[in-house]
């Protein structure tokens, strides 16, 4: 995959990645996905997204080469590769904050290294490729259990842990009402995981009927279309005895629709770091003293949100890149025990060579697309 500019990508042959650090490994990619946050790159909204970059932070693969200091995995191992690159030794990694590593991104200090996510996230090539370089191979990769489907495994690199952490950061207590803005793969998974924390009621809000229908069936939640409401915040207030939801999750981020001013200033003119409509609604829809959990991705500059309301309501606002490595043991158990069914999110499988079509289909929400998996030509299973 080769980025050529906003909404332009193509499949090309590139040189094989090389070991550049003693803890590097090279993997042959077996499955890779297009993520909703890849669309921020695809649309040209993330600063320092250079032409010639390869995207893709959701991938699993087979180790084909290791650096001299790699001891935890070996050639032939099939591994889940967390989307964030973490050294395991810095001040943040040692607190379990593997999404905030301080030794994997030279170009920015706010975010750790992420595969295929612009030079603002470290300038690493991603996994929408036949082969990929995996730094810190002693830390990130986790062996795929023998009985696990590759389609389940690839969704454990980001979608499942991010949805789970969204619910976790919301601090859900038994019986809480949880509202999720955004019925993309992450929002749907967040809604599903909210039940694991004992939510009493889960409501998901989006504008795409097919996604709402999918969410209703997959995550057993109530699903509503905000285009059919006068005001989604008033709707949630009415649904919660005029108190507001206990917890609200923003699973949309910078591409949000629903507010013309936000759309024009955030998505068209780039005067903000994306459209903050979902976050705006989240702050206003949560109850006083409630929790807003943000996993939707925004750019690094500024956004217009009602911060005065957040202060007046005494809100707790949590957000973070997902600490995938921290969560994987528990989530692998949940998948193996049949509690979570990640591959149920996959609606489309395409050859990697058709990556441009895959991006267009996902971006334009064509053919009822929820989640697209790309399969490299070197993979036979």
């Amino acid at each position, binding site marked *: 995959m080769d980025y*050529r500019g906003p909404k*332009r990508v193509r499949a090309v042959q590139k040189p094989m990645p090389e070991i550049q*650090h003693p803890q590097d490994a090279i993997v042959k990619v077996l499955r890779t996905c297009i993520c909703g946050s890849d669309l921020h790159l695809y649309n040209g909204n993330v600063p320092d997204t250079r032409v010639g970059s390869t995207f893709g932070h959701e991938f699993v693969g087979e180790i084909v080469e290791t650096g001299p200091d790699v001891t935890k995995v070996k050639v032939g191992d099939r591994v889940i590769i967390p989307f964030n690159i973490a050294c395991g030794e810095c001040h943040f990694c040692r607190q379990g904050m593997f999404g905030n590593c301080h030794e994997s991104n030279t*170009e920015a200090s706010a975010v750790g290294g992420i595969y295929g996510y612009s*030079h603002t996230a470290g300038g690493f090539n991603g996994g929408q490729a036949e082969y990929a370089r995996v730094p810190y191979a002693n830390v990130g990769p986790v062996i795929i259990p023998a009985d696990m489907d590759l389609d389940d495994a690839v969704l454990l690199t980001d979608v499942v842990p991010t949805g789970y952490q969204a619910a976790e950061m919301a601090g859900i207590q*038994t019986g809480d009402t949880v509202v999720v803005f955004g019925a993309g793969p992450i929002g749907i998974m967040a809604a599903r995981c909210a039940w*694991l924390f004992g939510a009493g009621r889960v409501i998901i809000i989006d504008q795409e009927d097919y996604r709402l229908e999918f969410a209703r069936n997959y995550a057993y939640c109530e699903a509503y279309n905000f285009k059919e409401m006068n005001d989604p915040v008033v709707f949630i207030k009415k649904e919660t005895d005029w108190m507001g939801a206990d917890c609200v999750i923003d699973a949309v981020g910078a591409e949000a629709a629903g507010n013309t001013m936000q759309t024009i200033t955030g998505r068209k003119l780039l005067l903000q770091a994306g459209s903050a409509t979902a976050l705006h609604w989240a702050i206003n829809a949560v109850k006083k003293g409630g929790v807003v959990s943000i996993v939707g991705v925004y750019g690094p500059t500024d956004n217009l949100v009602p911060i005065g309301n957040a202060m007046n309501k005494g809100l*707790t606002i949590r957000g973070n890149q997902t600490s995938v490595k921290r969560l994987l043991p528990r989530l692998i158990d949940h998948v193996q025990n049949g509690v979570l069914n990640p591959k149920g999110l996959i609606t489309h499988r395409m050859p990697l060579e058709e990556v441009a079509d895959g991006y*267009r289909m996902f971006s334009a929400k064509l053919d009822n697309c929820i989640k697209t998996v790309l399969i490299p030509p070197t993979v036979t299973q």
Partner: protein
Amino acid sequence: MKDNAVSNRIDPKTIKGWGIDADPENDPTYPMRKRMNVGEDPTPKRRPDSLQPVTEEVLKSIERPKVSAVFGTPAPPSGLSGVIRRQAFKYSENQYKHWLPLIMADRVDVVEGVVTDLFKGKLPNIWAEKGYDMEWKYNRTAFITKMAVIGAATAGLVMWLSSGSKKQKKNKPQTKDYLGRF
């Protein structure tokens, strides 16, 4: 749907896995629960022993003292976009002077990418790169409408601009005559 819509609620206890991760102590939750202040950390500046050698230009945020132990190497800064990027990295992530030039550099980079393609004798296949086959297959009517609108707007703009230049040409001899009298 109205704002007082009746919801299709489900009994949560019938959902597989309901409450299995419920934890009354989960407050504050991640990332605060295992918080370790820098002052409590006996080795706050600990980093990996091995460092990736810097063999090509890597732009470094001025908010950190050193290049990170690993970094990506694709697409090092080059051309005019590279000049702009280098300038941007003189400022911190706290400043527009960092981010806005980077966005501008990205756009310049796109033009440089097309020029590079042409120099290599490759004409970018915009239709394929934009995945328009999918629009044609699944969204044809809206796609044709959108393209027609864009085409009409572009044609209108070109006509408007060319009529402006014709007017200028028409006025030009008069100016010449006027000047000629002196």
